[in-house]
C-alpha cells in the first residue's frame, strides 16, 4: 500500500494488528482512468474535498493574500503618509535588525521548546491515567477537561492572580507550608517566564490529553492480551504497543500544539503584558502591538509572515523526523 500520509510510520508498526490492510492493496488493481469515471472512486474524493476548499477560499484566501501583499508595503496608518508605498523586501530586511523581534523570537522559541514537550509529557500522563482509572471516571475526565474549558484570556488573568505577591494563592500556600517569604513572581524576568510556562502547560496539557486519550481508545485490546500471553512487561507493552500505536495521535497533537505555541498571546499578555521590560513578550504580542497599537500594518504583516515561515518549517521537521522515527 502506498503510504504518503503524515502518519506514514504507523502501518509498519502495527501492521500485524490489521492483517486486512494487506487486502486493501488489492484496490490498486483499479486503473486511475477507471476510477475517474467511477463516482464512488477518486472523483468522489475530490468532491469530498470541495467544501473544505470552498470555505478556505471564501474566508482565508483573501486575508492571507492581503497579508503577504501588505508585507511588501510601507503601510504605517498613523504616519500621515497618504498612500502605501511599495518597499519591496525592506520590511524583511528591517526584521533582521530589529532587536525587539529577536527578543520576542527568543521568548517565543522558549515557550515552544519548554511548553510543547512539557504539555506532551503531562498530557500523556493524564491520558494514560484517565484511560486506566475506573472509579470516578466522569470526575476525572471533567477535571482533565476543565483547564481546556476555561476561556483562554481568563486563564491568564486567574493565574496572574494566583501568582500575585499579596493576593495570590501561591505565596499563601508557600507561606502556610514553609513560612517562605512572599515573592513577586511576575515582576522578575525569570520567575515571570516560568510562571507563564507553567500556566501554558496547565492549560494545554488537557488539549494534548484529549487527543491522546482518543488515540488510546483506538488501540485494540487484543494486542495487550496477546502481549500478556507472551509475558511482556508493562513497560514493554507501553514501549512496543502503546507508543507506536499512539504515534499518529502524538504527531497530530504535537503539530497543533507547536503551531499554537508559536502564536502564544493571551496568557503572557494577561499575566505580564510582556514585562518586566520585554522579558516575556512573544512574537504574537509584538505583532498585535505593531498592528493594533502602532497601526504599522506593513511591518506587522511582515512579522506575521515570518511567524508563518517558522510554523511551516517546524511542522515539516515534525512530519519528517517524528513521523518517520515514531513508527520504527
Amino acid at each position, binding site marked *: 500500500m502506498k503510504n504518503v500520509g503524515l502518519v506514514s510510520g504507523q502501518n509498519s508498526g502495527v501492521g500485524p494488528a490489521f492483517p486486512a490492510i494487506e487486502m486493501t492493496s488489492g484496490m490498486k488493481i483499479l486503473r486511475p482512468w477507471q476510477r475517474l469515471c467511477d463516482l464512488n472512486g477518486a472523483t468522489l474524493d475530490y468532491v469530498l474535498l470541495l467544501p473544505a476548499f470552498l470555505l478556505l477560499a471564501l474566508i482565508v484566501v483573501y486575508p492571507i493574500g492581503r497579508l503577504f501583499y501588505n508585507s511588501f508595503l510601507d503601510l504605517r496608518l498613523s*504616519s500621515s503618509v*497618504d498612500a502605501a508605498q511599495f518597499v519591496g523586501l525592506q520590511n524583511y530586511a528591517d526584521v533582521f535588525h530589529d532587536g525587539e523581534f529577536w527578543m520576542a523570537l527568543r521568548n517565543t522559541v522558549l515557550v515552544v521548546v519548554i511548553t510543547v514537550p512539557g504539555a506532551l509529557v503531562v498530557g500523556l500522563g493524564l491520558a494514560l491515567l484517565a484511560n486506566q482509572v475506573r472509579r470516578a471516571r466522569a470526575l476525572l475526565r471533567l477535571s482533565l477537561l476543565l483547564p481546556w474549558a476555561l476561556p483562554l484570556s481568563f486563564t491568564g488573568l486567574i493565574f496572574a492572580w494566583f501568582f500575585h505577591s499579596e493576593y495570590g494563592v501561591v505565596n499563601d500556600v508557600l507561606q502556610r507550608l514553609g513560612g517562605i517569604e512572599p515573592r*513577586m513572581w511576575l515582576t522578575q524576568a525569570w520567575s515571570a517566564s516560568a510562571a507563564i510556562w507553567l500556566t501554558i502547560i496547565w492549560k494545554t496539557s488537557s488539549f494534548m490529553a484529549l487527543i491522546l486519550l482518543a488515540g488510546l481508545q483506538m488501540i485494540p485490546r487484543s494486542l495487550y492480551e496477546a502481549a500478556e500471553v507472551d509475558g511482556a512487561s508493562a513497560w514493554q507493552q507501553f514501549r512496543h504497543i502503546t507508543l507506536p500505536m499512539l504515534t499518529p495521535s502524538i504527531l497530530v497533537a504535537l503539530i497543533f500544539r507547536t503551531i499554537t505555541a508559536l502564536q502564544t498571546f493571551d496568557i503572557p499578555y494577561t499575566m505580564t*503584558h510582556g*514585562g*518586566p521590560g520585554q522579558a516575556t513578550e512573544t512574537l504574537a504580542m509584538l505583532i498585535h*502591538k505593531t498592528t493594533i497599537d502602532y*497601526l504599522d500594518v506593513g511591518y506587522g504583516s511582515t512579522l506575521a509572515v515570518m511567524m508563518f515561515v517558522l510554523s511551516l518549517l517546524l511542522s515539516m521537521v515534525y512530519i519528517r523526523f517524528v513521523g518517520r522515527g515514531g513508527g520504527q
Partner: protein
Amino acid sequence: MLKCWLAGIALAASFTASAAEEIQLHVFSGGANQRPDLIRKIFDDYEHKHPGVKIQLETGGATSELQRQYLSTVLSAKDSTLDLLALDIVNPAQFSAAGWLEPLDAYLGAGKEKRLKEYLPAYARSNVIGGKLVALPFVADAMFLYYRKDLLEKYKQPVPKTWDELASVSRKIQEGEKGNLQGLSFQGAAIEGAVCTFLLPYWSQGKELQDANGKLSLDKPAAVRGLKSWLSLVDQGVAKKNTAEVTTGDTVNEFKAGKVLFGINWGFAWDRFQQDKDSAVRDKVGVAVLPALAGGKSASCIGGWQWGVSAFSKHKAESVRLAEYLSTPEVAKYLAVEGSLLPVYPQVYTDPDVVKAVPWFASAGPVVQSARSRPVSPRYSEVSDKIRTVTHAALAGATSPEQAVDDIESGLVRVLR
C-alpha cells in the same frame, strides 16, 4: 390571516418610508464608566428637539483597549457604519493621522476659536492636531490625590504639598495606626496609569517631555529624580513593596477597604469610595492637588473622552452638530449632576447646582486645572508602551532608574521628533 399579513406589510412599508426621511446616526461609546445610560437620555432629548434625526448608541468594550481594538478594525476597513466616536484622550492624534477623523474646523467656522478658549486648556491642546481641530471634548478626568480626612484630622496633619511632606505625614500616621496602613498607593503595573506615574514627579519639577514642536525634550536628571522619589517612598515603607504590581483597581479596592492613607487615582474612584456598599471610608475622603517635588509645581495627568466624527461617515454635518451639542456646558452640567462625570468647562465646577449635587467637584476643579496632557503624538501608543514598561521595570527593581531613563530616551527619541 391574510388581512393580518397585509397589515404587517403596510406597517413595514410605512416604517421604511419614514425611515427614509430621517437620518440614523450611529454613535460609538464606551462601557459602564462612560455612563451609556445617561448618554442615551441626552440622545432622547436631542431626538426630540431635532425631528428627523434618530440616534443609535453602540457601546463598545469596557476598557479603552478593547474599544481601540474594535475601532481600529472598523476604521481600517474604512467602514461607514459608525458616525460619531467617543475617543480616549490619547487617541485623537493617532486616529487623525491615520485619516480616520474628519477635521471639524470647516464645520465650526468662526465659532471654533471662541469654543476652544472655553475648555480647560489641556483639552484644547490634546484635540488640536497639526492646527486642525479633530475632536470635541466631552468628559474630563485627571489623577487626584485622595486622602483620609479622618486620619489627617486625628493626627492633626496637613494635606501635604510636597512628596517629602507626604512621606513624613504618612510615616507619622502609619506609626500611630500600627497595623498595616499603607501611606501611599499608586500604580506601578505596566498599564496606561504607569505613564502618569512616570510623568507626575517629572512634571512636578516644572519639566516638559515635549517642546513646542512635539520633539522630545527629556531632562534626564529630572526623570531619574522622579523615579527615585517613587523608589524612596517604597524604601521608607510609605508605599508597598509590591508597587510594581499595583493596578488602578488595586488602589481603589485597598483605599476603599480603609487600608490606605493617600491614594493616587482617576476621578471615578470618588464614587467607589462614597457609594459602594462595601466601602469602609464613606465620608472620610478628601481630594487635593498632587504634591510637587520640593521647589516645583503641582501637576496632574489628564484623561477623559472626546467626540470625533468618522471620516467615513455618510452624515458628517449632522454628526458634527450632535458632537457640538454633546460638548456644551449644559450637557457637561447634566452629566456632572446626574453621573458625577467631570466637566471639561472650568466654570461648571463652581456652578451652584453642581456643587450642591457633587460637593467634591469644588476641590476637583483646581486639580483638573493643573492637569497636563500626556505626550500628544500620532505615535502615542509607542510612547506609552515605552514609558509604561520601563517605569514598571524600574519600580520592580528589574532596571536601575538611570538605565530606565536611558531606555526611555533611546526609545522616544525616534518617535517624538
